[in-house]
Structure formats: structure tokens, C-alpha cells
């Protein structure tokens, strides 16, 4: 608080401008979703509707496409992916950070190498594999390719390294077995990292268009971005208000989730939770 006020103001102004630029599309999306069609086409920069048509737009959007179904699909897929990612990444990272075994450095190298490979590079073999096993056009096709996250392993590895060995030794002396150590000591400590990772994972898979587009054919399994795509192509034309309302509905869960978890998210990225 001892910063000179002029610097404070400068900082505030800069941040406000940056935030506005980033938020502008979102603000217009919300604005358009509240306007009637003729007002959208009439132009004008104000995001605030002169004539309120929000109710009609949102109702229309929900009616013309099973948007809630798409949102539910998104929740199922993202929760499935996150669950398995945590199940695999946390023990793997724990082993690499805290246990000594031959080949540890080599495995860590593989993890780092894995970070460099984009999904597009491996999509063809994975698709063929899924197709051969008859899994395309199922939830499994959306979840299975992402259950092992090298990014997750790396993030948790970094975080586990900040947990001192003496802490785990102390727990062992206090009578805790491995399971108890995991539940009582390690899991509470990695919550910030897990939250941060959860947000990264959910955001990227919620917004993923590439993979669902490849493996999903039936509209019932549409994920939120596919839903918007379907909405746009079917309702193409003048129902921009409804389109924007649909987009709003589909992005809302993410925004809410982020707002709820934002403090832990920031703790998780800065990895400072164990200081002191």
C-alpha cells in the first residue's frame, strides 16, 4: 500500500484497458443475446439493448437446440477426463518426485518430451485405434485419448517437489501408513495445484472442437462447441440473438467455475502454498 498513488493509478488504468479489450467480445455476446434481431442489424456500438429481447432469445435458443443436453455432455466428458487425469497423474508425479527407482530421470525426460507433442500429431493413430475397437461416436471416444496428461504429471511433479521429505517422514513416525499420508497430508497440500490443473483441463476440453468433431457423429453426443456449430449451421440466417444466447448458456458454466475457484487457481500456479 506504500506505492505512490500515481503509479497505482497508472497500473489500474493499464489493467482496466487490457481487461476491457479481452472482455469486449464477451460483453458484446451478452449484449447481443439481449437484443432483438433488428436492433443487432441496425448497428451501433452500445452493448446495452434498447428493447429487451433477452427472454425470447434465451427461450428460443433452448427450444431450437437441446443446449442443456450439450452442456450436460460437456460436464460428463470434462468430469470424466479430469477424474482419470488426476487418478493417473497424481500417483505418477508422486512416484517421480518422491520415490527413487532406476529409470526415474529417463521417465521424467519422456514426460517433458510428451509436453512437446500436440494432439493433432497423434490424432490419426488414436482415431484408427478407436475406430477398430468400435468406440467412435461414444463418450469413451471423447474421454479415453485424454486420460493421461503429461502436463498434469509435470505440474504435480513440480508441486510434490516443494513438499519436504521430512514432512512425509514425520507423518510416517506419527503412525500414518501410505494411504493415510495420501489422504491426510498430501491431498490437502496439493489442492491448489489440483484446482489449477482442473481449470486448465476443463477449459481446454470444454472448448475443444477438434477432437469431438472427428469422433462424434450423433447429435446426442454433441459437446458444447459442437452444439454451437450445429446451432449456427441449422439456424443460419438472422437469429443472431438466439445464437448469442446459446453461446452464453454454453460458456456460463466455465465462467462460474472459474469465479468460484479463482483464489485457489492463483495459489496453484504460483506454487507458494507451502511457504513458511
Amino acid at each position, binding site marked *: 500500500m506504500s506505492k505512490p498513488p500515481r503509479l497505482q493509478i497508472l497500473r489500474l488504468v493499464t489493467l482496466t484497458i487490457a481487461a476491457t479489450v479481452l472482455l469486449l467480445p464477451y460483453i458484446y455476446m451478452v449484449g447481443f443475446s439481449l437484443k432483438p434481431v433488428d436492433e443487432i442489424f441496425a448497428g451501433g456500438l452500445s452493448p446495452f439493448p434498447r428493447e429487451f429481447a433477452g427472454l425470447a432469445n434465451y427461450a428460443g435458443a433452448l427450444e431450437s437446440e437441446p443446449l442443456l443436453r450439450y452442456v450436460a455432455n460437456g460436464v460428463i466428458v470434462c468430469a470424466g477426463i479430469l477424474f482419470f487425469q488426476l487418478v493417473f497423474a497424481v500417483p505418477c508425479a508422486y512416484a517421480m518426485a518422491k520415490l527413487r527407482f532406476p529409470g526415474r530421470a529417463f521417465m521424467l525426460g519422456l514426460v517433458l518430451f510428451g509436453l512437446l507433442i500436440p494432439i493433432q500429431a497423434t490424432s490419426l493413430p488414436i482415431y484408427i485405434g478407436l475406430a477398430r475397437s468400435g468406440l467412435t461416436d461414444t463418450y469413451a471416444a471423447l474421454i479415453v485419448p485424454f486420460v493421461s496428461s503429461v502436463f498434469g504429471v509435470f505440474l504435480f511433479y513440480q508441486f510434490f517437489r516443494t513438499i519436504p521429505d*521430512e*514432512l512425509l*517422514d514425520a507423518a*510416517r*513416525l*506419527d*503412525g500414518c501408513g501410505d494411504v493415510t499420508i495420501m489422504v491426510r497430508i498430501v491431498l490437502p497440500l496439493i489442492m491448489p495445484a489440483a484446482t489449477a490443473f482442473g481449470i486448465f483441463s476443463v477449459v481446454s476440453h470444454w472448448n475443444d472442437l477438434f477432437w469431438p468433431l472427428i469422433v462424434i457423429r450423433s447429435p446426442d453426443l454433441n459437446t458444447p462447441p459442437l452444439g454451437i456449430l450445429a446451432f449456427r449451421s441449422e439456424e443460419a440466417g438472422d437469429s443472431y440473438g438466439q445464437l448469442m444466447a446459446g453461446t452464453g448458456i454454453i460458456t456460463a458454466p466455465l465462467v462460474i467455475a472459474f469465479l468460484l475457484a479463482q483464489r485457489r487457481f492463483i495459489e496453484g500456479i504460483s506454487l507458494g502454498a507451502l511457504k513458511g
Partner: protein
Amino acid sequence: MAHIEIRNLEKSFGDTPVLRGIDLTIERGEFIAVLGPSGCGKSTLLRIVAGLEAHDRGHILMDGRVVDGLAPKTRDVAVVFQSYALYPHMTVAQNLALPLVMRDLTRAERLPFVRYLSGRVRRTRADIRDGVARAASLVKIEGLLDRKPAQLSGGQRQRVALARALIRKPSLFLLDEPLSNLDATLRASTRAEIVQLQRTLGTTAIYVTHDQTEAMTMADRIAIMIEGRIVQVGTAREIYHRPTDVRAALFIGTPKMNLFDGTADNGAIRLAATGAVVVQATGARNGPVQIGIRPEHMVLVPEDPGDGIPVATTHREFLGSEALVHVAVGDGTQGTPAVARLDPDTADTMTVGRTAYARFRPGALHLFDGEGKCLDPDRHRPLSRIPSAFGQEDGASDAQPVPRIVGG
């Protein structure tokens, strides 16, 4: 309260031997310090005794029972770590309660809501709360029970760590440099508190440190550990006055013991730098020896008394009640460095840059053979008459028994 016996313990990390055959017996209720430079294996020894690390060879016995390979929790030991290792997400009360919760409640009984179903669990939980309160009052942290470790000062954390170790009333305390993260004032007062606590509880304790002051002031006995071996075990006095190994001699005492190269020649011990015979040690095998003398036993005079060894005065330090005079023995200022502890007035008569004359109190000399072992440390025969070049300094040293000079 446990009786600990460590027999021929060996441990290597890969190709690096860390413990090379440790033998150590610790009596019931004894407070023993394992003192050594960093990297000597003392923390590894502690971790092996705690059961956190496996050893390669040898045995550990607690009350006559071999505990090799037993898990830490079954050994009934408690450790105070250097970093305190408090659980950062738990309050002080929860930190203290965890060892009792783990010991007194089964896995099912530990589940969160069981206390509402079972009267027994409720009573145990109440006992645990009492235990926490008692332990907290022992180390005077009653007011901090609701805080998280991050909200505590270093000294307070240290107390919480102590309380967590003693709450279970273990039969053995292991302390791994518990004071090294405290500032000097706090360290001095905590030293006394830990000793009092250990006396009150009567628990056997092993205290690992690299700080000779801590070891000397706190422990009943000190085990000096160097390069994976225990070179001497004894009380602070024994080790200070009768070191059996040159490394133990150098490790205890500030400033360090002065050490000069010398030779044994038919019982006459000569200083290599000047060729002067400093003492007769009948029976010492001919060959190189090391001649040690504590700074307070080295007498300096400004004028040659006729039998002194000329030394070059290089530096003088005034410390209030005493003064240290640094000299070089033999070969001008390039000679073997040595320190004499004098009273400040005597030190004032010495001028830096000029020659002074040293006399060694013969009764206070320590002789070590080529391997650094004390020449027959157990024999307390007074020296045969001091060679003519060296008169007795004063009556006081006459009265002292003359230790360990005579080789066999």
C-alpha cells in the same frame, strides 16, 4: 525409556559408504549427542534408528529386542526434525493430536462422523484433547493451539515440534539439529529447556548436531562421529581433556587444539619445526607423531626465558575476559599457525610482528601417532622429568595428573 544398542551398523548410498561400522550403546534415560561435521553420516544414523532408512549390515536393539526392518511407528520413537516438519494445513492442535489419533483410534473410528455414533470414540477424542492440552502446557504454547504453522515464529514452531514429539510419550527421542534454525539468543535458552524437558520425562534421547557447544552443554555423553565412524564416546570433559583421536581433539574446543608435526626418536618427542625436544615419552614407537596442545595450555612470554621456542606473533584478538594471540611456530611467519589463550594483560605485552617465546605445559600435551590415534590414552603415568629445555610452567600443572603422553 529405552536402552539402545547399535552394533556394527553399516550403510552405503550406492558406492558411497556413509556409515562404516557404528557401535554405540545408550543407557536408559541418557541424553547422548552425536557430534560431527556435516556429511559425516550422523543424520543417516538417526534416520536408521528411527526406521526411516534401511541399513545394510549390523543390528539395532531397543531394550534387547532387534528392531531391524521394523516400521517407524512400531519402534515407539519420535523425531524432532531440523525443519520441524509441521503439517502446514493443520492447526497446532491438529498437529499435536495426529500421533494420538493414529495410535488410539482405528481406521474406521477415525472417520469424521463416528464420534457421534460411538461413546468410546467420543471418550478417546476427549482424552486426546486433554493430551494435547498437557503437551502444549509442557512447552508453553497453550495460546497457540488454533494457529496454523505459517502464523508462528521460528521459536514457536520449534516448540510445537517438540510437543508433537513428546505427546505420545515415546521411549526414544531423536532430535536432528533442532536448534539450527533459531537465532543465537533463542538457541541458548532453548538448549536449557530441552535438557530440562528430557530430564523431567526421563526419555532416552539421541541428539544430532554439528555444534560442539550444544553437544557439550546438553548431553550426558557425546559420540564424536567423523566420516562414518564414531571416533570417541565420552563426557564433554573426557573428550576435551583426553581425546583418543586427533580428529576428536580438533573437533572439540574453540579455538581448535594447536597441532604440530613432530617425531618420536627413542622416546624423545621433537618438534619438527624447530627440532626442540618437547617431552619424553618412553616407549613411543619411532616415527612421525603429532603434538597437540590446547590454546590455554600454551604459554607465551615476550622475552626468551632461556628454554622457550621462538615464535612469530601474527595477530592479537581481545575478547574481554581473555585474549587470543596467533603465532607461527618455526620458519618465521610461514611456520605452523598456533593460537594461545592468554589473559588480556599478558597478551598486551606481546607485539604483533615481533618474536615471542612459547612454552608448552608438558602435562597438557597430547601426542598422536601417524594414524591420529592417541599414544596410549589409558596410561596416566606422570612424565619422567621434563627435559632440561622445558621447565614446569607453574605449580598448577605440577599438581595435574599427566595424561596420555607415554606410548606403548
